[in-house]
């Protein structure tokens, strides 16, 4: 962390200028612009950024503050943007000087917990070393703790993690992520972990409209687009898909789009005609409607 110069306590500091100088405005803006929906998450990120900024200014005025605890927990259903927001968070922390590198090391249980006695500690420490100066993002963190098996090595990983979270707070920020209910249970059985995490952020599910918007942005990113009818069909698709099991919000949308691209490619290939840029970039209604969810819905309707 860069030590700010001490200013006399009577001096006043322009917060807006501070905000500009830190360059977090752009990150917050791009967060606002690039991510659809997620209003509560964006507000929390703003709050945290504001707190850190104010803290920095306070420090400059010589008002001693504890180094803020920055460990966070992101809970929400799959595909709600937890990893993406973690990346942005790292960027914000980096710009504010609370995180030296601003890189994100994303791990799961397998990367932390070993397979035999004495394997876990070196493995966990190795990961922690890699994450130093940045953000350690632990996806599905509750798998670290398996209450049904008392010999499980996950507990060892948790203890090492807790120690580093406490002692090396300025070297490392830990973000735990996972489904809301399981995270809740994980924190209940690990009170030490709960007390060391200052910020709990909930990621709501996307609405159907938001998913439609996300799909369009994804396609635009890959230089594709829906035509009118396809867009309407896709909205219907989202409604149908949401009813199925294993619905994973934006990730399901992404997979669906991948399959539609496959169908589009095959359609163009089979048609044998010459193609232009227009044909190559457009996903038509038939590409969308060929999905098995439509066929299933039809079958259900027929019954």
């Amino acid at each position, binding site marked *: 962390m860069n030590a700010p110069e001490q200013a006399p306590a009577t001096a006043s500091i322009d917060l807006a200028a501070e905000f500009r100088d830190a360059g977090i405005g752009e990150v917050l803006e791009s967060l606002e612009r690039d991510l659809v929906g997620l209003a509560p998450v964006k507000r929390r990120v703003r709050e945290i950024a504001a707190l850190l900024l104010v803290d920095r200014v306070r420090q400059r005025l010589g008002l001693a503050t504890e180094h803020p605890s920055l460990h966070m927990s992101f809970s929400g259903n799959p595909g709600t943007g937890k990893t993406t927001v973690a990346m942005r968070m790292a960027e914000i922390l980096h710009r504010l000087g609370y995180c030296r590198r601003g890189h994100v090391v994303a791990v799961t249980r397998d990367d932390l917990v070993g397979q035999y006695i004495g394997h876990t500690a070196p493995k966990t420490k190795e990961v922690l070393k*890699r994450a130093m100066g940045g953000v350690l993002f632990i996806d599905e963190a509750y798998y670290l703790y398996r209450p049904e098996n008392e010999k499980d090595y996950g507990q060892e990983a948790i203890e090492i993690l807790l120690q580093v979270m406490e002692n090396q707070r300025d070297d490392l920020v830990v973000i735990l992520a996972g489904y809301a209910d399981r995270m809740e249970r994980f924190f209940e059985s690990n009170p030490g972990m709960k007390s060391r995490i200052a910020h709990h952020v909930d990621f709501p599910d996307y609405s159907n409209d938001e998913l439609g918007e996300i799909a369009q942005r994804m396609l635009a990113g890959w230089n594709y687009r829906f035509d009118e009818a396809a867009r309407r069909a896709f909205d219907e698709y989202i409604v149908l898909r949401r009813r199925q099991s294993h619905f994973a919000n934006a990730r399901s949308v992404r997979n669906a789009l991948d399959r539609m691209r496959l169908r589009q490619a095959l359609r163009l290939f089979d048609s044998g005609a010459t193609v232009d840029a227009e044909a190559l970039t457009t996903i038509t209604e038939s590409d969308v409607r060929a999905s098995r969810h439509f066929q299933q819905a039809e079958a259900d309707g027929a019954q």
Partner: protein
Amino acid sequence: MRITQGCFSFLPDLTDTQIAAQINHCLEQNWAVALEFTDDPHPRNTYWNMWGLPMFDLRDPAGVMGELKACREANPENYIRINAFDSTKGWETVRMSFIVQRPTAEPGFRLIRQETQGRKLRYTMESYAVGRAPEGARYAP
């Protein structure tokens, strides 16, 4: 006699901040940093004991500094050095190596003269520390 091996050995000992800055430089060059320790500082003893494996994929010196602290606690009266390995094709070698801890007293080396045929002299040297005690007890405080 203060032994001089590797970079910076003619300078006063580096502080931890300076060590971290040097490690930072190594990591910026994408070199893998490793810790090694020994109590046999003979210049031809190139194989020191490894403190864990070389640390790949690190982004920040904090990880190395943590290991260095642990190594110092475990080997308080040993020499410890930091090696930075460059894996780029064509280099594939240690690019930088410097001592980050030395024993409080360094007795130095004895020059041994061995007389051979025709009054010829062969020279070699031996560390006093190595001569006086077995491995592990050489620099006991």
